[in-house]
């Protein structure tokens, strides 16, 4: 009984619940918190663009073309058509973030479902599904995105579609490998031994353990998606002028790189800032969600 009384004396830490302990661990990670704040700031900027932006992003002034940073009334200068750079960068966050987040979310749902199903069913279903996805995965992602967008033509919707197709295979691969490893674990067998049905096992025990890692991986793809979307716009696919989008702005300002290099680099800085903050955020999430540490 001594061991019993010792355990009795030991303070029983009140369980805080999974998400609260994840939150606590996340808050301890300074880098991740900073990244989270920057990402949140960018999102807020995109949502409240009309209230924040000092000028109309589409309203140009010929005499103000390529004004340098710090010009009166144009805090970040003006672009090649004399539009306020600051306003265009703020409005650009809307489309850029949209093109970064939405394809990944759709691919997360579709690719995740395919991967979990393939991983749980195993056998020939797994082999066929995963080999088909491997064919898509074998293309370099930039090439695949360009090929699909090019075939479908320019436009936001087509860009969205092509990026979604690009992200389904990698997400499905991660989902499949995590599911395969979880499926072999003893608690799945234990759930079977306690009479749980297959559906319940997939829904509660497989999904519960698998969604976290897949989600974290998907967040790391947001920055890739943004860069690819910017690349598509840069090539004239995806978003078309005069819409403000960072990739497109980078494209249209590239002729000004010798005249106003700092100005031309600004959209690139925004893309860099956004993608790095989303990457760090997903890194922080990954370590915060790791239960078994």
């Amino acid at each position, binding site marked *: 009984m001594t*061991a*019993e009384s010792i*355990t*009795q004396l030991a303070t*029983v*830490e*009140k*369980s805080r*619940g*999974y998400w609260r302990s994840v939150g606590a661990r996340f808050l301890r990670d300074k880098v991740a918190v900073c990244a989270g704040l920057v990402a949140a700031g960018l999102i807020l900027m995109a949502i409240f663009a009309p209230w924040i932006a000092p000028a109309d992003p589409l309203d140009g002034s010929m005499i103000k073309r390529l004004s340098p940073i710090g010009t009166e009334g144009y805090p970040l200068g003006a672009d090649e058509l004399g539009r306020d750079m600051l306003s265009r960068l703020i409005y650009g966050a809307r489309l850029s973030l949209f093109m970064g987040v939405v394809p990944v979310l759709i691919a997360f749902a579709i690719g995740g479902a395919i991967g979990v199903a393939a991983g749980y069913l195993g*056998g020939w279903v797994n082999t066929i599904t995963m080999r088909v996805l491997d064919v898509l995965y074998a293309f370099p992602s930039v090439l695949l995105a360009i090929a699909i967008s090019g075939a479908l033509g320019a436009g936001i919707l087509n860009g969205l579609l092509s990026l979604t197709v690009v992200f389904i295979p990698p997400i499905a691969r991660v989902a499949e490998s995590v599911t395969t490893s979880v499926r072999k*674990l*003893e*608690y799945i*067998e*234990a*759930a*079977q*031994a*306690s*009479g*749980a*049905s297959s559906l*319940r096992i997939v829904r*509660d*025990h497989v999904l*519960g*353990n698998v969604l*976290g890692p897949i989600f974290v991986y998907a967040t790391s793809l947001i920055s890739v998606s943004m860069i690819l979307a910017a690349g598509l716009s840069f090539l004239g696919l995806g978003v078309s002028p005069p819409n403000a989008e960072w990739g497109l702005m980078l494209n249209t300002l590239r002729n000004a790189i010798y005249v106003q290099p700092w100005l031309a680099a600004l959209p690139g800085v925004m893309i860099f800032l956004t993608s790095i903050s989303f990457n760090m955020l997903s890194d922080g999430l990954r370590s915060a969600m790791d*239960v*078994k540490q």
Partner: protein
Amino acid sequence: MTPQPCPSETPLVKVRDLCVRFSGTPPVHAVNSVSFDLAAGEVLGILGESGSGKSVTLKTLLRLLPERKTTISGTVEVEGRDILSLQGRALADHRGGVASMIFQDPALALDPVYTIGQQIAETVIRHEGVTRRDAMARALEMLELVRIPSAKRRLDNYPHEMSGGMRQRAMIALALACRPKLLLADEPTTALDATVQIQILLLLRELQQEMGMGVIFVTHDIGVAVEVSDRLAVMYAGSFVETGSVADIIRDARHPYSKGLLAANLVGAVPGTRLDAVPGAPPPLNALPEGCSFAPRCAHAEPACGLSPLPVWTGGGGRWARCVQASRAEALADSGARA
């Protein structure tokens, strides 16, 4: 061919000529012609080394083996119901309701993303169709039953927030939550340290008597097997080689393998000398030798050991051993007594 163990009126578990084969190249004969009965409220210890087919035998009772890769023949009945033909709902009702299982490593057998309370409640809801509130009340009751201190707070703990012994208690609570008639314990103390081990064994023994369950306890540790069992079955290379009451086997093991296992302990060992061990390794299960599969490692092997079927020695109280030597010794003793 296998002798029938003690015939009770209505055995809780009745296994006859169970053979389990895993397909593959080459196919593996994991369990070969195993037969036994288990009465309600009885504890059977299955003793054997790694890979002898103990766990496979146990999993067959819940049909947990991968269907596509396994061929099972023979009869397996629990409460007179044929387990091998159960399908769908009936099978799910059997699992966890009539028979449930405690796994070797509770750190692996509990789902890390749900609290202990949720996991117990899930099983209770599944089998008894009660509300979540009632199921949680049952979970609390179970944690108190397995003597987890501050049970109410432990209900909200995740498995990783508990110690190894505590987790195994929780696992036992989970297995017993629906008051099963049959408890299958697959080396439940192997992953625990020695002091916790004995607590868990005593707890299991106590709960077994309180609830009147039949228990099949699989272990490779003869000390553990003796502690909890009424009857022992020694398993080697997929077959039972000897069964009998714990006292009989400890006092007077007949099969050379059982004798070897009993000799291979640390009690009375002299420091600096080699420990008594059974020499060699078990035969691969895909190429079992003809006749006695222990013969290649047996000090008393003789040509007759390579012939099947092997003679079986039977003693009183359901004792038997499948060994040439044991049966001949008996015959000699008999003729000696007659002379």
